[in-house]
């Protein structure tokens, strides 16, 4: 590389588990460079042992999220010139609120386990003898579900949420949002099981409505809409004498 080429000074978190430290790399500046390009450059040209995760590179798969200058972001669609500081420096760390496997790869297992805990999966109940549930694509409920299922499971919201940081049991924005789509679904059964799951001790009532989830969601989703609705539904259910776990 030419000596006078503009460089980025990139501090990268290295280590596994709770131990680690920052390591600095100088990376040449390119046009239209994403954070993922930076990480890939380091791995290809500076240190092949650097661990990180990605798959699609186009904002579909949700696997590439990291903390970039302290903020959770999808790295394949975050352009360097949007986030680098004026002195061309960058700090890259694994996603917050999750255990670290190695370097920039966070362990997403707790994030996905909470989706299951929140009953955020389809609960089929009808048989082939039953009428097919009518789904009205124009209804407000369906419009809400259509927006929310654009979630790519990237855990950016989970990393942004201070309630997750303070309470390891909190299910978090993405799992609650997905459970809400299941609850709203005309075809879903076990609605009470979903409501029990989302209103337990780690449930929706922990949320402080600070909206960091919506602020950082790269797909511009707003899990707070779903969480506020779950709060409403479970609060009325309790007032009407139904059970909340």
């Amino acid at each position: 590389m030419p000596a006078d080429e503009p460089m980025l000074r990139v501090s990268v978190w290295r280590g596994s588990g709770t131990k680690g430290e920052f390591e600095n790399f100088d990376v040449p500046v390119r046009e239209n460079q994403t954070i993922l390009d930076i990480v890939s450059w380091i791995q290809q040209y500076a240190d092949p042992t650097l661990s990180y995760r990605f798959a699609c590179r186009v904002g579909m798969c949700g696997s590439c999220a990291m903390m970039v200058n302290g903020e959770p972001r999808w790295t394949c669609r975050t352009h360097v010139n949007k986030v680098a500081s004026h002195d061309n420096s960058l700090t890259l760390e694994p996603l917050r609120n999750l255990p670290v496997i190695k370097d920039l790869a966070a362990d997403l297992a707790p994030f996905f386990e909470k989706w299951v805990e929140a009953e955020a999966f389809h609960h089929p109940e009808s048989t082939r003898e039953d009428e097919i549930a009518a789904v009205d694509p124009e209804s407000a409920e369906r419009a809400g579900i259509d927006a929310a299922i654009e979630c790519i499971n990237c855990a950016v919201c989970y990393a942004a949420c201070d309630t997750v940081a303070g309470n390891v049991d909190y299910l978090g924005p993405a799992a609650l949002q997905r459970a809400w789509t299941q609850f709203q679904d005309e075809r879903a059964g076990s609605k009470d099981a979903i409501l029990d799951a989302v209103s337990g001790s780690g449930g929706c009532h922990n949320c402080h409505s600070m909206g960091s989830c919506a602020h950082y969601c790269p797909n511009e989703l707003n899990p707070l809409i779903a969480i506020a609705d779950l709060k409403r539904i479970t609060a009325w259910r309790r007032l009407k004498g139904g059970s909340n776990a």
Partner: protein
Amino acid sequence: MKTPARKHPLWLAFMLHRVSGLALALFLPLHFWVLSYALTAPVTLDGFLRWTEYPLVKFAEFGLVFLLAVHFFGGLRLLALEFLPWSDRQKTLAATAVGAAFLVSGTFLLKAI
């Protein structure tokens, strides 16, 4: 280390609600203690009330009224968020709560001086 991301309106509204709530929780016992002099020792209370003529104390009272008002209006916003149908104008509503609190506490200050 990781500095969490917090520079956005609804997080600030959350923090303002927390801080005002805590400050009120600390202030209210004092407030009732002083008020209790109305029953037990009216002369002491009068002495205390003369103290409130100082500008600095007036300004501190303005702060207290602001905290009370911002906690009240912010609380209304949260109740609406949790019990009324969703509204996309949360940032506007949070700003309105702060604006209304300034209006109330500012009016109080203007009346006091």
